[in-house]
């Protein structure tokens, strides 16, 4: 046995924080947990968008619904994640559906608010002009309002995705937490390399997802990239983070 192999072996027995041998021997387990983490996040955010859109449109069309819809989604946000997963337990049992449902409920707060804010920010004169040009309400929505609301919508999607990735770890409570499972197991057995590796992977996932969504947003909204000359005269229409509206909303991310 070479000295190198012995040293690598030692980092597992010495319980080092950083251990290449751990990565090598447990890569299958790590991949499996990451895949579970990704699909739980993707499923939660996708279902969240599918539910949030009709809710936001309903709240916009019938202002009487806006208060209850916003109030209810905000109320859901105050429920602790551990409690949320536990309260859903009698309904779903120990399943991934339980974690996904909880995460969908949390994502609604951010998504509904941002979709509403985005649609509300469409200038009235733009809407009028489109109507004057004979746009029906569906075409107005699809070709004018939706594209203009896209920056706020994408900002909401980014926040929802990133906080969902963080929250998924709590699903370890019921054994469906993706990387959270490895963190949980690592704490029980005081296995440092496993806890650190899974935590870092979790943060990396959030960063990668955020960058991917940012890239998608740029592709979908080419008009927001103001030419340099114009940008010099006037500030970019999206100063910094397009969701600069969100800090004002009393529902910041409940990470976990």
């Amino acid at each position, binding site marked *: 046995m070479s000295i190198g192999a012995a040293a690598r072996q030692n980092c597992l027995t010495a319980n080092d924080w950083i251990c290449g041998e751990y990565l090598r021997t447990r890569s299958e387990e790590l991949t499996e947990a990451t895949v579970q983490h990704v699909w739980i996040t993707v499923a939660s955010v996708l279902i969240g968008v599918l539910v949030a859109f009709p809710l936001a449109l309903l709240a916009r069309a019938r202002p009487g619904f806006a208060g209850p819809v916003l109030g209810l989604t905000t109320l859901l946000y105050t429920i602790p994640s551990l409690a949320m997963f536990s309260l859903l337990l009698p309904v779903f049992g120990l399943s991934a559906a339980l974690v996904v449902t909880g995460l969908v409920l949390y994502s609604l707060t951010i998504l509904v608010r941002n979709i509403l804010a985005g649609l509300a920010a469409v200038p009235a004169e733009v809407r009028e002009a489109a109507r004057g040009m004979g746009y029906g309400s569906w075409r107005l929505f699809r070709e004018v309002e939706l594209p203009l609301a896209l920056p706020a919508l994408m900002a909401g999607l980014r926040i929802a995705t990133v906080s969902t990735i963080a929250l998924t770890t709590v699903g370890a409570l019921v054994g469906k937490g993706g990387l959270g499972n490895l963190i949980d197991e690592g704490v029980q057995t005081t296995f440092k390399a496993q806890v650190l590796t899974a935590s870092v992977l979790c943060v990396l996932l959030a960063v990668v997802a955020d960058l991917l969504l940012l890239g998608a947003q740029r592709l979908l909204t080419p008009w927001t990239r103001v030419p340099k000359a114009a940008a010099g005269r006037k500030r970019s229409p999206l100063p910094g983070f397009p969701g600069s509206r969100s800090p004002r909303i009393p529902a910041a991310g409940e*990470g976990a």
Partner: protein
Amino acid sequence: MGVLADAWTWLATGSHWSGESGVWNRLGEHVYVSGAALAVAAAIALPLAFWLGHIGRGGALAVNISNAGRAIPVFAVLALLMLTPLRSEGYLPTIIALVLFAVPPLLTNAHVGMREVDRSVVEAARGMGMSGWQVFRQVELPLAYPLLMTGIRSAAVQVVATATIASMVGQGGLGRIITAGFATYNTPQVVAGALLAALLALVVEAVLIVVDRLAGPGAARRRVRRGAARPAPSGAGA
């Protein structure tokens, strides 16, 4: 509905409320840990946000920190801290993790509140010869107050909600009732603990709203407004 009835029976049993793992003790731990974390986070975030807001810098920084805050998996931070020597320091790991989590929303809301103050009002105050400290005390802070309170409220509720996670690494708090129920396959106890945790978060939200209504600087204004027939709209849309 059977589970809820069982959970109610669990809650109505007096012996579940007393002792080291009883509801009262867990509630006390929860309030202590959340309160300490919130106080430390406010002591760090608010002066920094006020100062940056006052000198008019760091807007992008505040937003970036806020976004990073959402990406922090508190469970992971807590788990990492529990594998360091800090694990024998009682509730310190939980408090540190919660502080990391609470600073971003506090910082961002306070900063945005300061920056939303009408610049012309600040300029007018300076023109009247107010010092930087006077402008901050008498103009910026009162006008930033509503957003500041919103930030404190959301941070407080999130901290109380998130403190339940401490139980997943064996620390105390209301979450412990839930995880203990999981360990013993006692679903009524799990649901009872979840109800208690959710209830506490809602109570904290409600208490802060009431305190704000009664004691905030807006309270006097609202009382006057109720008496006056038609108040002149305030310049800085506070």
